[in-house]
């Protein structure tokens, strides 16, 4: 390999290495991807059904990235999406996402979930005390997550060890 060719290859490899560290994506895509991953890495106590129902409270904060999850397989189920869901209808969900602009509904969502195996995912640093089971938190230009293992265990969820390892904090 000639010297210039070798330098070029080094240049590109160097750039590629940099690329895996600095992926960039818009918020909605990142959050939707997190919801998909949570569905993959958590087992619900009752999975003998066709649909894994993913709900989002309020108007569509996650746009097209969330819609692209419709029909995606998770073990032997397929994801179905409902957005604009009212707090009253949360029992019809398996995973409910409470966006930041609906944070005030979180307490009510927790009351309505009431022991059913419904995973509450919320945004904000004080989402955990308010009732979230998994919280998405913005930190240093990225989004990280925390898990309330005690509550999820009590409701019958099985959270994979890999997901717990990657969580910033496990309660």
């Amino acid at each position, binding site marked *: 390999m000639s010297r*210039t060719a070798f330098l*070029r290859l080094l*240049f*590109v490899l160097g*750039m*590629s290495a*940099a*690329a*895996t*560290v*600095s*992926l*960039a*994506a*818009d*918020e*909605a*895509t*990142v959050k*939707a*991807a*997190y919801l*998909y*991953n949570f569905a993959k*890495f958590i087992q619900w106590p009752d999975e003998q059904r066709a649909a894994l129902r993913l709900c989002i409270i309020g*108007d*569509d904060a996650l*746009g097209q*990235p969330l*819609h*692209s*999850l*419709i*029909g*995606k397989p998770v073990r032997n189920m397929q994801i179905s*999406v*409902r*957005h*604009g*869901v*009212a*707090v*009253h*209808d949360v*029992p*019809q969900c398996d995973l409910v996402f409470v966006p930041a602009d609906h944070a*005030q509904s979180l*307490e*009510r969502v927790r*009351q309505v979930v*009431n022991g*059913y195996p419904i995973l509450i995912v919320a945004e904000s640093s004080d989402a955990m005390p308010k009732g979230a089971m998994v919280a998405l938190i*913005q930190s240093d*230009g*990225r*989004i*990280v997550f925390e898990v309330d293992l005690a509550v999820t265990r009590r409701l019958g969820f099985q959270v994979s060890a*890999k*997901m717990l390892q*990657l969580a910033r904090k496990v309660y």
Partner: protein
Amino acid sequence: MIHERKSSSASLAVWVGMSVLLVAHPADAADVDDLSLDDLLNTRITTASKFSQRISESPSTATVIRGEEIRSHGWRNLSEALASVRGFEISTATDYRYLGVRGFSQPGDYNSRILLLIDGIPANDGIYDQAMIGSEFPLDMNLIERIEVVPGPGSALYGGNAYLAVVNVITRQSDSIGRSVTVGAGSNGFSSGQANAGGRDGTGRHWLISASTERSTGSARHFPQWDGIGGGDGWARGLDDERQRRLFLRYGDEDWSVHLLHGRRQKEAAGALYATDFDVPVTNIDATTQIGLRFQRPLKTTWTLEGQAYAGQFHWEGRYRYSGAWESDMARSGWLGGSAQLTGKPWENQTWVLGASIRDDFKRDQENTGGLSQGKRRTLSLYAQDDIRLTDMFALNLGGRYDRDTLGSRQVSPRAALIVNLPGATVLKLMTGKAFRPPNAYESNYSYPGTQLAGGTLKPERIATTEIALEQALGAHGRWTASMYRNRFRDMLGTVTDFSTGLQQVQNIGDALTEGLELGARYRFSGGVDVRGSLSWQHSEDAAGAPLPNSPRRLARLLAVVPLGAYELGWETYYTGPRRDVFTNAVGGQTVSHASLSGRFTRDLRWQVRASNLFDRRVVTVAGPEYSLGAAGNVPTIPDYGRQMQIHLTADF
């Protein structure tokens, strides 16, 4: 040599290009399922590139009723939700429900002074310009996302009939509705059934279907004035039957949707209206079918084009018995309309709205034993609004609309508002505007030999409003609003009744004034308790200085939604202060409360119990003059319902 240099710089460009591609490659171009948990932890978020809709301060003191509130309180038609709005008051006559706004409530005006929109499409019929808000409201309350109520003159944007208020009912997204079946039962032989299903696929295509029906044998009511007349005891028994059905279909995509709605209600009305026999009810059948198409398209830069096209038909039939002989009246209207609206920011600090709309009331037929009257009408309108952000603190909103119809009406409705953002999340609004209401086909053309003379050439009625309001946010959990207003009415249209001959005619009866002060607040406490309340002081007078009929001097409302563990309680208390009837006699104040409790049997089966007039209070409604044309003489008030209970069971699929 030259050849080599060229190729090396070209290939360098290719290498650099590829590298740039690798670094700058946005992950959202990849599928969401390409991002693993490890990847996500290392992904930097870029600011959302979608056009951020600046929530500009609206030039009004709107009330928004959320779909959750409708469910928590168990409201079954629009009037029950509107009763909770600051400054609003519902009168329950035996035939229809009427809405009074800020001290103006003319019994029997068919709510033609309110513009009802369903997803922005006008829903008032073509003959009475009626806003069907009672059980004849053609949309199931279960399908509503929110109701935006804007008191005040709305003609500057919406034209005639946006006179006292504009009520926009916004339906829920198709996939938020899911699949469910509801059955209900209750007092007075009430039974109901409802089913709905909706969905949305990954490409944005959505669909929704909903059907419901309701039946009630109604309640016996006592009319003391009829006690002893014709050997009767004044009790109207079995004269209150009501049946109703609704259908809603919708289909669409990201940028467009088309809907069809249908509602039909048949109701018997007691009280010997229009001098009919007391022991037999008047039967009203109101049916409407409406189609609407809406689309939205973003244009280059900051502009958006919105359009709507709609068609509707309304059919009314009334059956009456006079001294043993049956008669029936009919009205049929058909209308077509459309509008196009451009919204955008030609300059950084201004948002413009420019619109044009047309409406063709191609059929407005009224038929009775006196004959057939017809009267087509076409209306063309142009409107514009400019929202100017003058400084960080001041914004100015100016708007106007020109409406011209083929019956000779030409109106200009201007509106202006100054919005001041004070420190501490306080907003001060100063608003002024004019609105109008053209006479409807009933007022102009309807005649009945021996009972009613046609209105003939009538002037449109006009209103000029001034309002000052203060809105204050209470942290992130609530807000309070204080508002002072004055409405000047010109050339009011009203029914003049000659009680000696029993003849009625609609005329421009003169001027009037209403003014008042309203205080409203809402707050969501920790623990989920949501409270909403309002107080209103209202003053009204006609041209002679006498108070208008059915104009309460005070109103108070208190609503609360209280989570109680696995249950939820919805509470409502309404106080209506002293007012006058149409004969200028005083009618005392009254308080009525309703409560709703809901819960779940299982995850997929929920229940709701509602008690209206929980304490079984004696409540009355001020009667329109149509109740006083019979042998009993003057009937100033109609008894309202006592306590009624209903239970509904819903199964979700």
